[in-house]
């Protein structure tokens, strides 16, 4: 192993501080979620208990966390699926240099940079004026897509910029139809970043507040619910929720890493003598 330079240690320290900063609130939430039954949202701790985790699964005074969670989860899955499919399709499309691709691309960029409350407002207005029912699965769904799709698209650009076109040509040469090429060659090769897009799409949707605010209709998604909860006596239940969310994220990422690792394992299977001559 090469010896490490001094700057390496400085940077490691900086990185550690940064991670500490990132996790500061997460850790605070983690600690406070174990408040005693009489504890509040702030320090000091008044005893230590898992009371609030139990409370999380019981009925709340206000609102319906689990209903909201179910909606957010379903919505997240919907957004995830559509984001993956549409952005992969669009990624494929943009390699074809079709007329107007520039306009569409800049539209996607615009979609990314437009402040989210405007989208919320606009979608709300359109549905109102058009007499369409505002519902989390229609208007909120659409509003969230304006945020996750450009993201997915950018990732797809990054993926296809690095994708060797010869794989496709080889597939076509081997008699694969356009669909077979996508199904048997392109998708398997780009699978890891696509899984990344899926994860990202899900979590962006799951945590989206502003775009859902004016578009969710009768029922709240989780972020709105949490915000709604703050209009009454809030208690460490929301910290318990935060802690569980974090653990949930850890689990998802672990699964993701597991899948990627398993894919890699399959590719490595059978040992290797790559690099050695014939």
């Amino acid at each position, binding site marked *: 192993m090469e010896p490490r330079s001094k700057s390496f240690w400085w940077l490691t320290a900086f990185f550690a501080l940064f991670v500490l900063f990132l996790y500061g609130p997460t850790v605070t939430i983690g600690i406070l979620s174990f408040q005693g039954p009489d504890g509040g949202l702030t320090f000091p701790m008044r005893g230590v208990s898992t009371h609030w985790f139990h409370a999380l699964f019981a009925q709340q005074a206000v609102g319906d966390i689990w209903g909201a969670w179910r909606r957010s989860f379903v919505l997240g899955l919907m957004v995830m699926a559509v984001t993956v499919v549409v952005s992969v399709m669009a990624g494929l499309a943009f390699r074809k240099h079709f007329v107007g691709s520039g306009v569409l691309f800049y539209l996607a960029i615009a979609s990314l940079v437009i402040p989210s409350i405007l989208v919320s407002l606009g979608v709300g207005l359109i549905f109102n004026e058009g007499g369409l029912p505002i519902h989390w699965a229609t208007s909120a769904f659409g509003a969230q897509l304006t945020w996750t799709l450009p993201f997915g698209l950018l990732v797809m650009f990054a993926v296809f910029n690095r994708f060797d076109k010869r794989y496709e040509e080889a597939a076509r*040469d081997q008699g694969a139809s356009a669909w077979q090429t996508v199904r048997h060659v392109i998708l398997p090769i780009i699978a890891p970043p696509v899984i990344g897009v899926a994860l990202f799409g899900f979590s962006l949707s799951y945590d989206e507040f502003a775009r859902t605010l004016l578009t969710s209709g009768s029922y709240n998604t989780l972020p709105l619910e949490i915000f709604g909860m703050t209009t009454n006596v809030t208690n460490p239940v929301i910290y318990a929720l935060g802690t569980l969310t974090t653990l949930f994220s850890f689990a998802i990422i672990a699964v993701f890493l597991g899948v990627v690792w398993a894919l890699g394992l399959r*590719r490595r299977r*059978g040992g*290797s*003598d*790559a690099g050695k001559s014939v």
Partner: protein
Amino acid sequence: MRTPNDLELVHLTKRYGTTVAVNDINHVFAPSTYVCLLGPSGCGKSTTLRMIAGHETVSEGGIILNGTDISRLPPAARGTAMMFQSYALFPHLTVRDNVSFSLKMKGVDKATRAEKAMKLLDLVAMAHLAERMPAQLSGGQQQRVALARALITEPRVLLLDEPLSALDPFLRIRMRAELKKLQRETGITFIHVTHGQDEALALADEVVVMNNSVIEQAGTPREVWGSPRTEFVARFMGGHNVVTFGGQRVALRQDAVRIAAGGQPATVTASVTGIEYQGDRVAVTSRTELGEEVVALVPDAAFFAQPINPGETLGLAWDEGRVHRLEA
């Protein structure tokens, strides 16, 4: 001689916007030959090959295989198969699955697929590594898998775009022998793009030299090397001096130039500008009074018996009969 099974390019042209990559070329490839397509970078070799394979649309002209124009067919329907530079093996499939890919696309059942793939892997001596992933193979092994994958479609014509360029010279020489052997065994026409003239000479039954989007000369290696039609071919194929002789551009083989020792009659006098050792021979470069560079290939024993240093003046001689007239 025309046979029904040959491949013919008819007025084949490819334009990218205003640049013409392939300019109205006509050529007939005889069946069961090993053809090398040779030329400097950017001359249109890859484009020609890719048009034949169907990975590039034809701007004008046609490609006739076995009597039918295949130039509008999809790649897999043409009876050609392509082997790509750096092989383009599917990284997510095992060696066997790579080879049986086209059968899977056709819907052939698993057992038949595996059997046929193993037969081809046997042919290229890779059956023992059928379960490996491409990343676990060396360059030479990857090449063989790519070959097997191309051959499983039972093509009439196999197209190879610089298949050896990623290998080190040692390996390259071994692999080209394998290619040649395989071509002979299968009887398929191989069209092999390269820009190494030694490779082309060693491998080909027919050498096609391209330059500036057109075919400059085609023929057996001996024809092309021995009787270059133009100055470009003479220079590009190597081993020749191009000099002006009696107001004419001529090619003169480097090994036909003698250094006139002592009192021997010299055709020209020249001053030595460079000495390049080549192992069993030494290339002596000198500049004639006309300012033309002439290389003489001298056997090493002869050279070291009477070493020459840059800056010296010497006489060069050659037999009139060895001078080869070039077209303007």
